[in-house]
């Protein structure tokens, strides 16, 4: 398994305002190994250190102690290479639309690729391809980013990072403030992007339903420490521990849990509505009239 990992951390620790009365350890001895080509959810209570951890992955924050390894190399070993690290590990902040600044959407999306030193032709190819993947029409590319709707702005900003084709894409709550329809659409597009580019996508989210539906693995942070990093199903089996840290399992998983306790022979590891529907229908068909 080791050969498949792309990003690792070794005893990663970060302390805010070290040496002052406001000292706070936000990330505490985290050891992780993140694999290539995966969709990973990052969950944790507010203030659990998720965002701080994410900012270490692309070298925006320097660890107080410990290391971040990209392809086995310490990203802080050579400061000049740090910029390349940022192209390989793309980070989309919360509310990324506030970073738009160019005259047109096209120019804004090409800011990253331009900084990478790509040729105009390459930039054009990337921008158009990314815009298509994220669902921005060519018409919109010519407009000013400030003239777009909220959802379009969000997509334009995410496209700005995607266009760099990072090997790892980190999205910090990409759906915050979007309506339910917009959320689903955006997440589906991110999922498609991941499959198409075979990259690793880290999705920070507060919605258990979202991570249940779209991710294969979950990284759970609790009080600055890594609680676990495991398959989504395995994480949701730890119902009690999750609720003890202020998280919960997806609602539908709760319903299934209760049904099982009431004696219905439903399988474990069901945490999306579709799976639940299929399982219940199968059970009903098997049981026939007796179950009803």
């Amino acid at each position, binding site marked *: 398994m080791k050969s498949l990992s792309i990003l690792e951390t070794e005893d990663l620790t970060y302390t805010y305002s070290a040496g002052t009365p406001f000292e706070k350890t936000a990330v505490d001895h985290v050891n992780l190994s993140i694999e290539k080509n995966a969709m990973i959810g990052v969950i944790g209570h507010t203030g659990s250190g998720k965002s701080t951890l994410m*900012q270490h992955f*692309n070298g*925006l924050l320097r660890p107080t102690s410990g290391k971040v390894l990209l392809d086995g190399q310490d990203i802080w070993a050579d400061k000049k290479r740090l*910029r390349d690290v*940022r*192209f390989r590990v*793309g*980070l*989309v*902040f919360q509310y*990324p639309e*506030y*970073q*738009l*600044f160019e005259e047109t959407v096209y120019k804004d999306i090409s*800011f*990253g690729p331009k*900084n*990478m030193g790509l040729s105009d032709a390459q930039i054009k190819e990337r921008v158009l391809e990314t815009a298509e993947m994220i669902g921005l029409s060519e018409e919109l590319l010519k407009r000013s980013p*400030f003239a777009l709707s909220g959802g379009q702005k969000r997509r334009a900003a995410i496209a*700005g*990072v995607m266009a*760099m084709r990072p090997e790892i894409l980190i999205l910090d709550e990409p759906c915050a403030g979007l309506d339910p329809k917009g959320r689903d659409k955006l997440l589906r597009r991110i999922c498609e992007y991941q499959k198409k580019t075979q990259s690793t996508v880290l999705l920070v989210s507060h919605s258990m339903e979202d991570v249940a539906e779209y991710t294969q693995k979950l990284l759970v942070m609790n009080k600055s420490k890594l609680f676990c990093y495991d398959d989504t199903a395995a994480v949701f089996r730890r119902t009690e521990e999750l609720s003890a840290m202020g998280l919960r399992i997806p609602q539908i998983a709760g319903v299934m849990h209760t049904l099982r306790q009431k004696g219905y022979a439903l399988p474990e590891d069901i945490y999306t509505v579709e799976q639940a529907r299929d399982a219940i229908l199968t059970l009903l068909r098997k049981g026939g009239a007796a179950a009803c």
Partner: protein
Amino acid sequence: MLKDITLGQYFPVESVLHRMDPRFKIIEIMLFIVILFAGDSFWILALGTVFVLLAQCLSNIPMKMIWKSIKPILPILALTALLNLLFIDDGDVLFQWKILKITQGGITTSLFMMIRIVLLIIGSSLLTYTTSPILLTDAIESLMSPLKKIKFPVHEMAMMMSIALRFIPTLLEETDKIMSAQKARGATLDNGKLIDRVKALIPIMIPLFVSAFRRAEELATAMECRCYRGGEGRTRLRRLKAQARDYIGFVVCMLFLAASVTINILVK
């Protein structure tokens, strides 16, 4: 890194100086500045030092913070000292090289100026360390209220000041965030030629302006929703009220002023 700016940074600890009426503190600091600038003998500086030390003792502000307030002005201090040293031609010549010469008078003046500036900075930062910005604007509003008679918009000025102060930390935080976001897209902010550096500011400044305007609009709407209509008939949560310690402080300051006048007369 942006958070290191201490200008007007309130240091919340418990002390006599913190509890004093901000209006008195402002008047007293003005008296202090008059004392410093009205005399030109070292005795005045000694008096000023005593004043600052006394205030520091009463303020509970650690020496480290005082040093932090002086640090940013060290380059200016060095420059003033250097200019005085080189260009004042007064008294015995101690050193000469071509047209450059250092005189006795130059050394004394540059020393005098340095100490004067340091005292000034410490004095005024003691005011801002011990008074929260909101109290400070309240005090300014109250001190300037006589100007209302000549239709000067005192309340509006004070409101603008407190809003500006209120948003400094918010905007700093925002700048930090935008900088991180653009760095994540490969923006380089701290190297290259001057023209490149100026260009590199565009991706920071535009989002910052946009968000500042957005915040301003939101705040204006929020204020209107709560029927804000200026200072007329508005009551306060914190009323400024002078107490015994404020009068004592004022008397002490007057004593310092008297001492400085005496020194000035005697030295002449």
